């Protein structure tokens, strides 16, 4: 599938034509993206092979969480594009193995980043997701380093990685790395999904984390 450089196919599933048109217009600014499928239901997706699927959580008045779970379990790369900012919904969707959750109020840049990242099995964390992750109190939550927590929190607060970098006294790249590492740690927990495995493999490949670090962060369980 499309990993680096080459063009990739994107599907858009939303029950509002205006959203499909809008997202299509946004994606048009990204030369490597080709819109391969649009529709208002998750039912007829079997025949369409797209690299990344942008999908709304609420289709024709129905919350399609279980459909999204099935698609993720099949190994589809999904970016949820939803009006909702509900924290438990964001956590559920990420737990299923969805690559990214972009709220409709976050807009074009974040959606493009998320789609590009998903196509390459790389993590992208929009500010809303950062807020949800840093406030996560679930006992099975992975252990984040203080820098990772601070990066997530400040990214959520300011929505500017440059500002976060200046405030932390590090480079934007470093801030980005902290945020990505936090996200990768979350790919380790909860239910297994092919997309999560791909993201972990890619993170190791990119040198974002080492297999040993992943093992360490999974050792939060107080077995002793």
């Amino acid at each position, binding site marked *: 599938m499309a990993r680096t450089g080459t063009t990739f196919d994107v599907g858009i599933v939303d029950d509002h034509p205006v959203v499909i048109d809008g997202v299509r217009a946004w994606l048009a600014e990204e030369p490597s993206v080709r819109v391969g499928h649009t529709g208002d239901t998750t039912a007829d997706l079997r025949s369409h092979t797209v690299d990344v699927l942008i999908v709304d959580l609420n289709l024709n008045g129905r919350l399609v969480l279980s459909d999204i779970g099935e698609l993720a379990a099949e190994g589809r790369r999904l970016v949820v594009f939803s009006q909702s900012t509900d924290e438990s919904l964001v956590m559920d969707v990420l737990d299923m193995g969805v690559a990214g959750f972009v709220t409709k109020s976050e807009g074009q840049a974040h959606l493009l980043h998320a789609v590009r990242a998903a196509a390459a099995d790389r993590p992208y964390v929009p500010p809303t997701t950062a807020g949800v992750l840093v406030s996560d109190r679930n006992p099975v939550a992975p252990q984040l380093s203080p820098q990772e927590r601070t990066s997530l929190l400040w990214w959520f607060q300011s929505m500017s990685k440059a500002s976060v970098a200046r405030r932390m006294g590090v480079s934007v790249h470093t801030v980005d790395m902290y945020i990505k590492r936090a996200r990768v740690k979350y790919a380790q927990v909860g239910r297994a999904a092919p997309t999560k495995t791909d993201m972990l493999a890619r993170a190791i490949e990119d040198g974002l984390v080492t297999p040993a670090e992943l093992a360490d962060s999974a050792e939060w369980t*107080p077995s002793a």
Partner: protein
Amino acid sequence: MAPLRSDTGAPAGEAVAVRYAHVISVVVVVIVAVWHFGYDSLILVRSWSRYEPAWVALASWLVLSVVQLVGSVLLLRSGLRGRLAPLLSSVALLAGVAAVATYPGGEAIGDISWAANTVGWFGVLLLMQRPMRELVALLACTIAMTTVALGVSGDLDTPVTWSRLIAQSYTTAGIQLAFVLLARELHHAARLTTGAARAQADRMARRAAEEARHVERRRRYRYLRDRIAPLLHDLAEGRAHPGDDTVQRSSAIEATRLRRLFAETEDAAHPLLHELRACADVAERRDVNVTFVCYGELPDVPVAVRRQLTEGPLLALASAKTSARVTVVVTAGEIAVSVVADASASAAPRLVRSAGTSVLFDEKENLLWLESRWPVPGPRSTSASSTTTRW
């Protein structure tokens, strides 16, 4: 003896009245038990040969014993308020009539008579919680029972018999009636005391609430006098000009503070969010586009801490020109409130630097970014450790 239970869940005063009623019930149960099983049994055994026929006397005694046991249990369980009480009383009365019928002639008042007085005490036991007229009727029946028995044996024509009848009625039915009247009076007094105690507690609670309200009102008044009055005075006397940036900003800040002051006394599920929204609301009225997001579960935050946590955000919001982003994040250890606004650089240094508040002005992005944190004390960390032990 049955234990005196007061843990009925009722308020303390109510428990006193319940206990009074219970003690009276226990006393009656004991009196009737001693009377019937002690005194009646003795007389019955001693004069066994004189009853005609003796088995009817024994049967009446047995019926009365059953009624007495059932009645005692029901009384102690407060089960004698219904129709069952007069029904049991009727059974007792009939058994009494049968017993009186076994007395030999002229003995309706004498060494071998026992039933009339017993039925009277049964009336006390069974009808104490019923309307008074039922007991009066039963006691009248016991007197009538003796009178008729005397009449049938032809003893009513001597004044001596009449005076014995009257004396007997006074010492039996009279005492029983007096006992019930006294018990009712005691119970009534206990209820009055209970009512008075509750009324006093209510009055004290109301007074405390009024005092708290008064203190709160005075705090707000002091605030208005110290902060807002000078501003208004200066405007009224022309010392301050509405067109002046500083005056405008001070007014915006005081307006937000006022709004927060009002929000503090409102009843809201999450007072901190409520007060922050109130601050955001004032900014929105100035056409500032405010987004407000909160993640995590908020603990209880004391009002003093809330004021400290909202002071910085309040000033930042009052300085925002066109847009502001308010976020609240609750993590295991702390609450972080943040405002990012497009304010001018000059606003930043003037922001109050209270404990836990840090301000950054990002010149490159022209962004005022303020963050106030409060470490959530105690229980949070213990709850975290208890969650850990589950695994």
